[in-house]
């Protein structure tokens, strides 16, 4: 009887297991296998030996190191900035009454806009061509600054565009989440604080922030993961040859190793992907630990 029941249970689970197996477990195992096959040749599907050479190669590849540097800079700059700015905007949004819906819509628009279309707009804003210096340079000139080539110029300028773009793209979702988190804080807490003569700053620090902290931590964690996986935004601005632009990311490096000009190296790609996985995993665990200690109710 119980055996029959067990069978039935497995039968119900079969579709899910099938999908997970084919699209999650098998690729994952495959990636791990690829990553330890040394000297893999995709044409003959053969390899010379098993070992950690692929990891060593990737970790010594200057392109990969550049990608790591870019990705980390992107993460460290954009996650705190975007969360902070989104919090500021949400607080301002929830403290105004007239036109709130209009502003909310405006702030949410980037979310429903195509990445590549937005990339095009940023190109127009930042790109310097023989005919035009771009919008931003025009503004810089007004203020008496020198013209900067943001797309093909110095590293810091490209990084700036990158971060600016990323922050702008992730902002709507964060604002959406935070405004609803702010709206869900019970008004009586504010009334109680008001009666007790609490200053606005203290209300924000001691009541609002703790009350929305679960949502804040959620945004920070997903923000970290999202920023570590950045790739398409870079392509939208700098084109497909990210290594040439010096703006490659880890995911970009993985893609290049598989399909790019230098493509055809699934072993290196797998090794890089696993390194990325290790990084994201570690950071997320640390994040969860910190949030557990700070969300206290």
């Amino acid at each position, binding site marked *: 009887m119980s055996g029959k029941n067990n069978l039935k249970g497995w039968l119900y689970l079969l579709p899910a297991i099938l999908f997970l197996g084919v699209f999650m477990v098998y690729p994952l195992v495959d990636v791990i296998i690829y990553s330890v096959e040394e000297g893999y040749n995709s044409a003959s599907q053969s390899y010379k030996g098993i070992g950690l050479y692929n990891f060593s190669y990737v970790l010594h590849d200057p392109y990969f190191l550049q990608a790591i540097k870019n990705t980390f800079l992107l993460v460290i700059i954009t996650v705190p900035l975007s969360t902070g700015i989104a919090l500021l905007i949400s607080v301002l949004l929830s403290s105004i009454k007239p036109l709130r819906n209009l502003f909310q819509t405006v702030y949410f628009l980037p979310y429903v806009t195509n990445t590549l279309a937005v990339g095009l707009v940023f190109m127009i804003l930042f790109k310097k061509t023989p005919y035009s210096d771009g919008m931003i340079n025009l503004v810089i000139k007004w203020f008496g600054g020198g013209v900067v080539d943001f797309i093909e110029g110095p590293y810091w300028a490209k990084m700036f565009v990158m971060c600016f773009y990323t922050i702008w793209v992730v902002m709507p979702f964060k604002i959406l989440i935070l405004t609803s988190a702010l709206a869900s804080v*019970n008004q*009586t*807490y504010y*009334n*109680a*604080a*008001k*009666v*007790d*003569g*609490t*200053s606005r700053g*203290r209300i924000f620090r*001691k*009541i609002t922030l*703790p*009350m929305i902290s679960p949502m804040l931590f959620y945004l920070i964690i997903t923000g970290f993961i999202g920023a570590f996986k950045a790739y398409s935004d870079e392509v939208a601005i700098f084109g497909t040859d990210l290594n040439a632009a010096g703006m490659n990311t880890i995911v970009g490096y993985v893609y290049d190793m598989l399909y790019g000009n230098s493509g055809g190296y699934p072993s290196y790609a797998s090794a890089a992907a696993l390194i990325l996985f290790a990084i994201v995993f570690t950071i997320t665990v640390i994040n969860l630990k910190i949030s557990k200690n700070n969300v*206290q*109710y």
Partner: protein
Amino acid sequence: MKVVLQNLYKRFPNQTKGGAEVVAVNNFNFEIPDGKLIGLLGPSGCGKSTTLNLISGLEKVSEGKIFFGEDDVTDLPPERRGVGLVFQNYALYPHLTARNNIIFPLQNLKGKDKMTKEAMNAKAEEVARLVQIEPFLDRKPSEMSGGQQQRVAIARALVKVPKVLLLDEPLSNLDARLRLQTREEIRRIQRDTGVTTIFVTHDQEEAMSISDLIVVMKDGIIQQIDKPQNVYDFPVNLFVAKFLGTPPINVFEGEVKGDRLFIGEQDVLEMKNVKDRKVYVGVRPEGFILDENGPLVCDLSAVEVMGRDTSVVSTHPAFTGVTIRSIIDTAENKVDPEAAQVRFSLKPYKVHIFDHETEERIPVEG
């Protein structure tokens, strides 16, 4: 500190377009004597919570004035009025311990009032002792029972020594047993501190049991302000009579004719010096006396023995409600539950008559 409300109005604009504005508080005039416990009593939506919010300053006054003692506080923001407010849901900060909740108002003090950590802690422990929650000071609200949370909320409201303590439906979130206990607790705390206290409730029993004065409200208008017993014994109108007392007062259609009071066709009482007219006759449940020759003849429905008392449930053609409930001392219970009819005579001072048009009580001499 006495609290004076003078020609107080609060109007809310109607949410739907073109609708009339809502007058939540309509021309309030009353003075709350220093150091008393006042119950604002009324059905839901009668404006009692709004009145409390006006006194606390959370709502802006539309018209009229509020005085604390001799000071006009009408335009002062809540934090400068020196009120302590206990919310219906307590509004304890869930991420702070009871102790930190209690000292939260103290930490807001600035300048010369600023307190050291030790002083704040000492103060917190002092009020915690007063409301008897010392053992729970380091617990979070989620780790406390409703009654304990309630007392933490009161402690937080008291810690700054408010001029006026305001309680919004303080007992509505507690179970029946805890409610009894907590209302005595509130009474005791109020006596110990001597703080003028105003509390809002829709439960007449709550208001009757602990208030020095009851303010009965309906639709934003004050119906009656008096001592609880006086409100019960001398209600100004039918609404107040119906609102106070459990089981509620029994209301009959009646008539005064030639110095006699009739319920339906039955001549029940002498009624001197009252003009002949149609009236409502209100009889408190304890105003019935079982009497084999009594003038009021009712159809018996049921006899419910409840230990000390017996509740006789009956009907009468002139009765405005569904069933008449009369409370009889069980020792005097001689009702035969099988009988078809039951006869009562009435205690004159438990019978109130109200004008049929205005529903005002008609004073009866003697």
